[in-house]
């Protein structure tokens, strides 16, 4: 049998079944005990009745004339006969019998005491040295019925009380497991990047060690990720300076060389160096986006960050322009400023690289922190739109770019419990491409 996944359902099932089994066993034991006691009482009553009837019957038989026929004791009024009897002489001839006594049910006298047949329990007794014997019978069905009624009286409440008990246990457990559900929900709604400790305040004492173990694990994970993040950052620094040196020397070579072939070689080196830099930069950005909490220790102004990112790209290797529409007041957000800058930079680079040269890239920031980056250009088919946030996805093989930009933004959106929406054509346009990054929810 497969147990339900819910701890509450398991507990209710286990406790309900245990209560039911214990109840049934108790009812059976009680019935057996009562039956034994009832049998003793009934046996005693049978014996007592025989011993009362026999002397009276013997006296009457002595006084009456024996005409060779059996006397039938008539009843005062009709009723169920639970005890019937016959009185025999030494030869086994029936001298007296109660009105409902069926001769077939009375085997001959052998000795005093109890005898059990298929239908009756019989008691034999004798008087006057064995000249008179009495056999008194009680139907077994009578005793069985008494036992059955006792069992029923003990069992019937189970059918009503068991569901009520299960319902009560269910409600009680539901109430008591409330803090545990809160603990589960708090973990369930978290993104992969949220490694803040879980609140253990309302948890029962038995669960607190588990929650503390989870928190200890989260802390260890956080430290490991921070160490990896630090490594990524240091690696980026170590790699950037030699690439910068090589690029500077190459660009000087381009300026100073007079030979066409040398200039061409220098151009090729420059292209490769820039590609190397772009790829290492994207891998570092991905490592940072995945590496730790995206919640800052204090809120930052997104307007300032967007201005810086757009200012950087203004000097870039592209023809089109960036049109910023930013609020006049600061837009404060708890998202990590570096993560937001990485997301914004990737969205802008993407739009500048793939957008039309004739139309500027429109960057719009709302007061609630919603960032929209839209560019003119050909419509991206819906089947390609879905793949754009996959790693190393490119719309076509000839497109420049690392294929990581939008997947980095998606990781940042997930890590900040935000949402990324990609539209083509862009809103209020017949062409183009648009990405909306909704505000972080911490």
């Amino acid at each position, binding site marked *: 049998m497969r147990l339900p996944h819910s701890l509450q359902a398991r507990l209710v099932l286990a406790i309900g079944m245990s209560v039911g089994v214990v109840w049934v066993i108790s009812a059976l034991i009680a019935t057996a005990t009562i039956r034994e006691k009832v049998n003793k009482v009934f046996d005693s009553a049978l014996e007592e009745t025989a011993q009362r009837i026999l002397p009276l019957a013997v006296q009457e038989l002595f006084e009456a004339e024996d005409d060779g026929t059996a006397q039938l004791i008539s009843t005062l009024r009709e009723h169920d006969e639970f005890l019937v009897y016959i009185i025999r002489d030494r030869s086994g001839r029936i001298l007296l019998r109660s009105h409902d006594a069926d001769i077939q049910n009375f085997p001959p006298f052998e000795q005093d005491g109890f005898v059990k047949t298929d239908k009756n329990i019989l008691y034999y007794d004798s008087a006057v040295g064995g000249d008179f014997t009495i056999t008194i019978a009680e139907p077994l069905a009578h005793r069985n019925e008494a036992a059955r009624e006792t069992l029923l009286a003990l069992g019937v409440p189970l059918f009503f009380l068991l569901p009520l008990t299960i319902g009560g246990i269910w409600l009680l457990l539901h109430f008591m497991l409330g803090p545990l559900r809160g603990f589960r929900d708090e973990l369930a709604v978290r993104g992969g990047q949220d490694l803040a400790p879980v609140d253990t305040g309302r948890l029962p004492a038995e669960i607190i060690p588990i929650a503390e173990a989870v928190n200890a694990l989260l802390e260890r994970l956080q430290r490991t990720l921070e160490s990896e993040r630090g490594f990524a*950052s240091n690696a*980026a*620094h*170590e790699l*950037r*300076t*030699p*690439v*910068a*040196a*090589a*690029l*500077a*020397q190459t*660009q*000087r070579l381009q*300026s100073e060389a007079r030979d066409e072939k040398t200039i061409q070689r220098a151009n090729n080196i420059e292209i490769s*160096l820039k590609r190397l*830099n772009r790829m290492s*930069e994207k891998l570092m950005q991905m490592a940072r986006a995945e590496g730790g909490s995206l919640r800052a220790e204090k809120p930052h102004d997104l307007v*300032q*960050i967007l201005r*810086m*990112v757009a200012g*950087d790209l203004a*000097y870039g*290797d592209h023809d089109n322009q960036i049109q910023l529409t930013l609020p006049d007041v600061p837009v404060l957000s708890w998202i990590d*400023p*570096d993560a*937001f*800058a990485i997301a914004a930079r990737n969205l802008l680079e993407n739009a500048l690289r793939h957008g039309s040269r004739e139309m500027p890239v429109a960057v719009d920031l709302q007061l609630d922190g919603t960032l929209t980056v839209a560019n003119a250009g050909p419509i991206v088919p819906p089947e390609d739109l879905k793949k754009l946030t996959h790693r190393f996805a490119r719309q076509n093989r000839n497109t420049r770019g690392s294929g990581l930009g939008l997947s980095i933004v998606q990781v940042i959106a997930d890590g900040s419990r935000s949402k990324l929406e990609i539209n083509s054509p862009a809103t209020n346009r017949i062409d183009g491409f648009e990405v909306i990054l909704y505000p972080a929810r911490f």
Partner: protein
Amino acid sequence: MRVLLVEDDTVLGAGVRDQIKVEGHSVDWVTRLDEAGGYIAAASYDLVLLDLMLPDGRGLPFLRELRKKGDVTPVIILTALDQISDRIDGLNAGADDYMVKPFDLAELSARLAAVARRYAGNPNPLVTIGDLEVDLAARAVRRQGKLIPLTAREWVLFEGFVQHPGQIISKAQLEDHLYAFDIEIESNTIEVHISRLRKKLGREKIETVRGMGYRLGEA
């Protein structure tokens, strides 16, 4: 313009130094912060290009200390620290601009010129002086739309006058502006460059203020 370059990577430093020289500016290049402090104390620079991670310390505390002393020399940070939070820290410490390695030398030149213009109080790259149209961003001078070719040294000299209109600039200041510490210059070098500039732009464009120096002519 006289520039102090503080960069410990010798290959990168050499590339940047050569680029600035070709643009016609004078460059002093040091690889340590203690050296940079000594150079700044000894000479007046128009711009400092500052790396943030140097063998004898970090660039940001150095920059903060510089600003605390009241030194307003424009500073552009050249660094491998690419995070936006590093940049905010850099700008808060008093930097005028922030460039992340690796960068294009052409972009460095453009930013260098932009910072210099901002400090000269004229962020607009297009300036008109009499019949001359000067494009500070493109480093070009035109008369009636016709380009007047200037050498790098001539341009830097002229740019110095354009950025300080009306001010008298001494010969010593012009030598500082044009040449680094390690260059031996002839006593009449400045006069030779001024003479050539006057020939190309018109005699009245640069006035001699006897015993004091030169200034941009109003005509």
